[in-house]
Protein backbone atom coordinates (compact mmCIF):
# COMPACT_ATOMS: atom_id res chain seq x y z
CA UNK A 1 0.00 0.00 0.00
CA UNK A 2 1.22 3.42 -0.91
CA UNK A 3 -0.42 4.68 2.28
CA UNK A 4 1.88 2.85 4.67
CA UNK A 5 5.00 3.99 2.84
CA UNK A 6 3.87 7.59 3.16
CA UNK A 7 3.51 7.38 6.92
CA UNK A 8 6.50 8.65 8.87
CA UNK A 9 4.57 9.24 12.10
CA UNK A 10 4.87 12.98 11.68
CA UNK A 11 1.77 14.33 9.90
CA UNK A 12 3.46 17.59 8.84
CA UNK A 13 6.30 15.74 7.11
CA UNK A 14 3.85 13.34 5.45
CA UNK A 15 1.81 16.16 3.98
CA UNK A 16 4.86 17.95 2.65
CA UNK A 17 6.01 14.73 1.02
CA UNK A 18 2.62 13.94 -0.45
CA UNK A 19 2.07 17.44 -1.79
CA UNK A 20 5.43 17.24 -3.48
CA UNK A 21 4.58 13.84 -4.94
CA UNK A 22 1.24 14.94 -6.33
CA UNK A 23 2.80 18.13 -7.72
CA UNK A 24 5.37 15.96 -9.45
CA UNK A 25 2.65 13.71 -10.83
CA UNK A 26 0.77 16.76 -12.07
CA UNK A 27 3.92 17.84 -13.91
CA UNK A 28 4.10 14.44 -15.63
CA UNK A 29 0.48 14.76 -16.60
CA UNK A 30 0.97 18.20 -18.11
CA UNK A 31 3.94 16.87 -20.09
CA UNK A 32 1.82 13.96 -21.36
CA UNK A 33 -0.91 16.39 -22.31
CA UNK A 34 1.57 18.45 -24.35
CA UNK A 35 2.79 15.27 -26.06
CA UNK A 36 -0.78 14.18 -26.79
CA UNK A 37 -1.55 17.53 -28.42
CA UNK A 38 1.66 17.24 -30.39
CA UNK A 39 0.82 13.71 -31.62
CA UNK A 40 -2.67 14.88 -32.61
CA UNK A 41 -1.20 17.77 -34.59
CA UNK A 42 1.16 15.43 -36.46
CA UNK A 43 -1.70 13.02 -37.27
CA UNK A 44 -3.92 15.80 -38.64
CA UNK A 45 -1.01 17.35 -40.53
CA UNK A 46 -0.12 14.01 -42.14
CA UNK A 47 -3.64 13.85 -43.57
CA UNK A 48 -4.02 17.56 -44.37
CA UNK A 49 -0.76 17.71 -46.34
CA UNK A 50 -1.77 15.75 -49.38
CA UNK A 51 1.12 13.89 -50.95
CA UNK A 52 1.74 10.93 -48.69
CA UNK A 53 0.32 7.61 -49.86
CA UNK A 54 -2.44 5.90 -47.88
CA UNK A 55 -0.11 2.94 -47.33
CA UNK A 56 2.11 5.20 -45.25
CA UNK A 57 -0.48 7.42 -43.57
CA UNK A 58 -2.85 4.74 -42.23
CA UNK A 59 -0.31 2.73 -40.19
CA UNK A 60 1.42 5.97 -39.17
CA UNK A 61 -1.67 7.67 -37.70
CA UNK A 62 -2.78 4.40 -36.08
CA UNK A 63 0.59 4.21 -34.34
CA UNK A 64 0.23 7.82 -33.15
CA UNK A 65 -3.24 6.99 -31.78
CA UNK A 66 -1.91 3.97 -29.88
CA UNK A 67 0.92 6.03 -28.33
CA UNK A 68 -1.53 8.76 -27.34
CA UNK A 69 -3.90 6.25 -25.74
CA UNK A 70 -1.00 4.77 -23.74
CA UNK A 71 -0.31 8.25 -22.32
CA UNK A 72 -3.99 8.65 -21.53
CA UNK A 73 -4.25 5.26 -19.79
CA UNK A 74 -0.98 5.26 -17.88
CA UNK A 75 -0.77 8.92 -16.86
CA UNK A 76 -4.29 10.38 -16.93
CA UNK A 77 -6.00 7.20 -15.71
CA UNK A 78 -3.09 6.36 -13.35
CA UNK A 79 -2.48 2.86 -14.68
CA UNK A 80 1.23 3.45 -14.04
CA UNK A 81 0.45 3.46 -10.29
CA UNK A 82 0.69 0.43 -8.05
CA UNK A 83 -2.46 -1.62 -7.51
CA UNK A 84 -3.59 -1.62 -11.13
CA UNK A 85 -2.99 -5.30 -11.86
CA UNK A 86 -6.68 -6.22 -12.03
CA UNK A 87 -7.63 -3.11 -14.05
CA UNK A 88 -4.87 -3.96 -16.55
CA UNK A 89 -6.16 -7.50 -16.84
CA UNK A 90 -9.72 -6.28 -17.43
CA UNK A 91 -8.68 -3.71 -19.99
CA UNK A 92 -6.29 -5.94 -21.92
CA UNK A 93 -8.78 -8.85 -21.95
CA UNK A 94 -11.37 -6.48 -23.40
CA UNK A 95 -8.82 -5.19 -25.90
CA UNK A 96 -7.91 -8.73 -26.99
CA UNK A 97 -11.53 -9.68 -27.67
CA UNK A 98 -12.09 -6.31 -29.36
CA UNK A 99 -9.07 -6.61 -31.64
CA UNK A 100 -10.07 -10.13 -32.74
CA UNK A 101 -13.52 -8.73 -33.59
CA UNK A 102 -12.00 -5.89 -35.62
CA UNK A 103 -9.68 -8.33 -37.38
CA UNK A 104 -12.56 -10.70 -38.22
CA UNK A 105 -14.89 -7.97 -39.46
CA UNK A 106 -12.28 -6.31 -41.61
CA UNK A 107 -10.99 -9.50 -43.23
CA UNK A 108 -13.89 -11.95 -43.45
CA UNK A 109 -16.76 -9.60 -44.27
CA UNK A 110 -17.04 -8.14 -47.76
CA UNK A 111 -19.73 -6.95 -50.13
Amino acid sequence: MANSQLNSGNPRVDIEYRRKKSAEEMRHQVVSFALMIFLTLIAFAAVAIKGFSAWFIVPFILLLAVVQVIFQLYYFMHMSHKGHEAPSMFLYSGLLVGLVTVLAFSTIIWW
Partner: protein
Amino acid sequence: MHAEDKLTYETWPAEPEKSTLEAKNKFLGFWFFLGGETVLFASLFATYLALKDKVPDSTHTLAKDLYDLPLTFVATMLLLTSSLTSVYAMYHMKNFNAKKMNLWLVLTLLLGLAFLGLEIYEFNHYVHEYHHTFRSSAFGSAFYTLVGFHGAHVAFGLLWITTLIIRNTKRGLDLYNAPKFYVASLYWHFIDVVWVFIFTVVYLMGMVG
Protein backbone atom coordinates in the same frame (compact mmCIF):
# COMPACT_ATOMS: atom_id res chain seq x y z
CA MET B 1 -10.83 3.93 7.27
CA HIS B 2 -14.58 4.40 7.07
CA ALA B 3 -16.73 6.41 4.72
CA GLU B 4 -18.29 8.33 7.65
CA ASP B 5 -14.96 9.48 9.09
CA LYS B 6 -14.72 13.26 9.38
CA LEU B 7 -11.39 14.02 7.78
CA THR B 8 -9.23 17.10 7.64
CA TYR B 9 -6.51 18.21 5.30
CA GLU B 10 -4.01 16.49 7.63
CA THR B 11 -5.81 13.15 7.89
CA TRP B 12 -6.96 12.88 4.27
CA PRO B 13 -5.43 9.62 2.90
CA ALA B 14 -3.00 9.48 -0.02
CA GLU B 15 -5.39 7.33 -2.05
CA PRO B 16 -8.90 8.46 -1.08
CA GLU B 17 -10.29 6.59 -4.08
CA LYS B 18 -9.25 3.27 -2.53
CA SER B 19 -9.34 3.85 1.23
CA THR B 20 -12.59 2.10 2.15
CA LEU B 21 -13.89 -1.32 1.18
CA GLU B 22 -16.72 0.27 -0.79
CA ALA B 23 -14.21 2.43 -2.64
CA LYS B 24 -12.01 -0.56 -3.48
CA ASN B 25 -15.02 -2.43 -4.85
CA LYS B 26 -16.13 0.60 -6.84
CA PHE B 27 -12.66 1.03 -8.30
CA LEU B 28 -12.40 -2.61 -9.34
CA GLY B 29 -15.96 -2.82 -10.61
CA PHE B 30 -15.54 0.30 -12.68
CA TRP B 31 -12.43 -1.00 -14.40
CA PHE B 32 -14.31 -4.21 -15.15
CA PHE B 33 -17.01 -2.08 -16.76
CA LEU B 34 -14.36 -0.26 -18.80
CA GLY B 35 -13.07 -3.62 -20.06
CA GLY B 36 -16.61 -4.36 -21.26
CA GLU B 37 -16.88 -0.92 -22.85
CA THR B 38 -13.68 -1.66 -24.76
CA VAL B 39 -15.32 -4.74 -26.29
CA LEU B 40 -18.50 -2.79 -27.05
CA PHE B 41 -16.71 0.03 -28.86
CA ALA B 42 -14.35 -2.38 -30.63
CA SER B 43 -17.32 -4.23 -32.15
CA LEU B 44 -18.84 -0.92 -33.27
CA PHE B 45 -15.49 0.00 -34.84
CA ALA B 46 -15.38 -3.41 -36.53
CA THR B 47 -18.89 -2.88 -37.93
CA TYR B 48 -17.97 0.58 -39.16
CA LEU B 49 -14.82 -0.69 -40.86
CA ALA B 50 -16.78 -3.46 -42.58
CA LEU B 51 -19.55 -1.12 -43.77
CA LYS B 52 -17.59 2.04 -44.56
CA ASP B 53 -18.64 3.52 -47.92
CA LYS B 54 -21.10 0.67 -48.50
CA VAL B 55 -23.90 2.61 -50.19
CA PRO B 56 -26.67 1.44 -52.53
CA ASP B 57 -25.85 3.80 -55.43
CA SER B 58 -23.59 6.64 -56.54
CA THR B 59 -25.95 9.41 -55.39
CA HIS B 60 -24.77 8.82 -51.82
CA THR B 61 -21.86 10.83 -50.42
CA LEU B 62 -18.82 8.78 -49.41
CA ALA B 63 -16.60 9.33 -46.35
CA LYS B 64 -13.96 11.24 -48.32
CA ASP B 65 -16.39 14.00 -49.36
CA LEU B 66 -18.39 13.98 -46.16
CA TYR B 67 -15.92 14.61 -43.35
CA ASP B 68 -14.53 17.99 -42.46
CA LEU B 69 -10.98 18.10 -41.08
CA PRO B 70 -11.11 21.52 -39.27
CA LEU B 71 -14.34 20.62 -37.46
CA THR B 72 -12.91 17.28 -36.28
CA PHE B 73 -9.73 19.03 -35.19
CA VAL B 74 -11.59 21.54 -33.02
CA ALA B 75 -13.72 18.77 -31.48
CA THR B 76 -10.56 16.76 -30.73
CA MET B 77 -8.87 19.71 -29.03
CA LEU B 78 -11.97 20.37 -26.91
CA LEU B 79 -12.21 16.80 -25.69
CA LEU B 80 -8.47 16.43 -25.15
CA THR B 81 -8.38 19.62 -23.07
CA SER B 82 -11.38 18.45 -21.05
CA SER B 83 -9.37 15.35 -20.18
CA LEU B 84 -6.61 17.58 -18.76
CA THR B 85 -9.08 19.70 -16.76
CA SER B 86 -10.47 16.57 -15.13
CA VAL B 87 -6.91 15.54 -14.25
CA TYR B 88 -6.59 18.91 -12.47
CA ALA B 89 -9.86 18.23 -10.67
CA MET B 90 -8.49 14.93 -9.34
CA TYR B 91 -5.25 16.66 -8.31
CA HIS B 92 -7.30 18.97 -6.07
CA MET B 93 -9.39 16.04 -4.85
CA LYS B 94 -6.19 14.37 -3.62
CA ASN B 95 -5.22 17.62 -1.88
CA PHE B 96 -8.61 17.76 -0.14
CA ASN B 97 -9.69 20.93 -1.90
CA ALA B 98 -13.36 20.51 -2.84
CA LYS B 99 -13.77 24.07 -4.14
CA LYS B 100 -10.98 23.86 -6.69
CA MET B 101 -12.01 20.33 -7.65
CA ASN B 102 -15.52 21.57 -8.44
CA LEU B 103 -14.14 24.51 -10.41
CA TRP B 104 -12.09 22.22 -12.67
CA LEU B 105 -15.01 19.82 -13.02
CA VAL B 106 -17.23 22.68 -14.19
CA LEU B 107 -14.56 23.58 -16.77
CA THR B 108 -14.55 19.94 -17.88
CA LEU B 109 -18.32 20.06 -18.25
CA LEU B 110 -18.19 23.22 -20.35
CA LEU B 111 -15.62 21.72 -22.71
CA GLY B 112 -17.66 18.52 -22.97
CA LEU B 113 -20.78 20.54 -23.70
CA ALA B 114 -18.98 22.43 -26.48
CA PHE B 115 -17.86 19.10 -27.95
CA LEU B 116 -21.41 17.77 -27.88
CA GLY B 117 -22.71 20.96 -29.50
CA LEU B 118 -20.21 20.55 -32.35
CA GLU B 119 -21.25 16.94 -32.84
CA ILE B 120 -24.95 17.86 -33.02
CA TYR B 121 -24.09 20.57 -35.56
CA GLU B 122 -22.08 18.03 -37.56
CA PHE B 123 -24.83 15.40 -37.65
CA ASN B 124 -27.41 18.04 -38.54
CA HIS B 125 -25.16 19.23 -41.37
CA TYR B 126 -24.72 15.71 -42.77
CA VAL B 127 -28.45 15.02 -42.68
CA HIS B 128 -29.51 18.25 -44.36
CA GLU B 129 -26.65 18.91 -46.77
CA TYR B 130 -25.71 15.39 -47.79
CA HIS B 131 -28.84 13.36 -46.94
CA HIS B 132 -26.51 11.08 -45.02
CA THR B 133 -28.89 9.64 -42.42
CA PHE B 134 -29.12 6.61 -40.17
CA ARG B 135 -31.36 4.88 -42.70
CA SER B 136 -29.87 6.09 -45.99
CA SER B 137 -27.20 3.38 -46.26
CA ALA B 138 -25.31 0.70 -44.34
CA PHE B 139 -22.47 3.22 -44.16
CA GLY B 140 -24.83 5.76 -42.55
CA SER B 141 -26.09 3.25 -39.97
CA ALA B 142 -22.58 2.16 -39.00
CA PHE B 143 -21.33 5.75 -38.82
CA TYR B 144 -24.14 7.09 -36.65
CA THR B 145 -24.11 4.04 -34.38
CA LEU B 146 -20.39 4.34 -33.64
CA VAL B 147 -20.02 8.13 -33.41
CA GLY B 148 -23.50 8.56 -31.91
CA PHE B 149 -22.78 6.00 -29.22
CA HIS B 150 -19.68 7.93 -28.27
CA GLY B 151 -21.71 11.16 -28.23
CA ALA B 152 -24.26 9.48 -25.97
CA HIS B 153 -21.40 8.54 -23.64
CA VAL B 154 -20.31 12.18 -23.54
CA ALA B 155 -23.90 13.25 -22.79
CA PHE B 156 -24.16 10.67 -20.02
CA GLY B 157 -20.82 11.79 -18.58
CA LEU B 158 -22.03 15.40 -18.51
CA LEU B 159 -25.19 14.40 -16.63
CA TRP B 160 -23.21 12.19 -14.26
CA ILE B 161 -20.63 14.83 -13.30
CA THR B 162 -23.31 17.54 -13.04
CA THR B 163 -25.31 15.35 -10.65
CA LEU B 164 -22.20 14.63 -8.57
CA ILE B 165 -21.37 18.33 -8.25
CA ILE B 166 -24.92 19.33 -7.32
CA ARG B 167 -25.33 16.44 -4.89
CA ASN B 168 -22.07 17.25 -3.09
CA THR B 169 -21.92 21.07 -3.14
CA LYS B 170 -22.59 21.40 0.59
CA ARG B 171 -21.06 18.12 1.64
CA GLY B 172 -17.46 18.89 0.80
CA LEU B 173 -15.07 15.99 0.30
CA ASP B 174 -15.16 12.76 2.29
CA LEU B 175 -14.32 9.12 1.73
CA TYR B 176 -17.90 8.48 0.65
CA ASN B 177 -17.88 10.79 -2.36
CA ALA B 178 -14.17 10.96 -3.29
CA PRO B 179 -14.30 7.52 -5.01
CA LYS B 180 -17.41 8.67 -6.90
CA PHE B 181 -15.56 11.68 -8.30
CA TYR B 182 -12.52 9.54 -9.10
CA VAL B 183 -14.55 6.94 -10.99
CA ALA B 184 -16.40 9.66 -12.94
CA SER B 185 -13.05 11.12 -14.00
CA LEU B 186 -11.90 7.66 -15.14
CA TYR B 187 -15.05 7.46 -17.26
CA TRP B 188 -14.32 10.86 -18.74
CA HIS B 189 -10.78 9.83 -19.70
CA PHE B 190 -12.12 6.66 -21.25
CA ILE B 191 -14.44 8.73 -23.45
CA ASP B 192 -11.34 10.55 -24.64
CA VAL B 193 -9.53 7.25 -25.28
CA VAL B 194 -12.41 6.16 -27.53
CA TRP B 195 -12.41 9.52 -29.29
CA VAL B 196 -8.70 9.18 -30.14
CA PHE B 197 -9.60 6.09 -32.15
CA ILE B 198 -12.71 7.70 -33.64
CA PHE B 199 -10.85 10.70 -34.99
CA THR B 200 -8.07 8.45 -36.30
CA VAL B 201 -10.06 5.53 -37.70
CA VAL B 202 -13.25 7.30 -38.79
CA TYR B 203 -12.26 10.83 -39.72
CA LEU B 204 -8.56 10.77 -40.62
CA MET B 205 -8.63 7.37 -42.31
CA GLY B 206 -11.89 8.41 -43.98
CA MET B 207 -10.20 11.48 -45.46
CA VAL B 208 -7.30 9.39 -46.73
CA GLY B 209 -9.76 7.17 -48.58
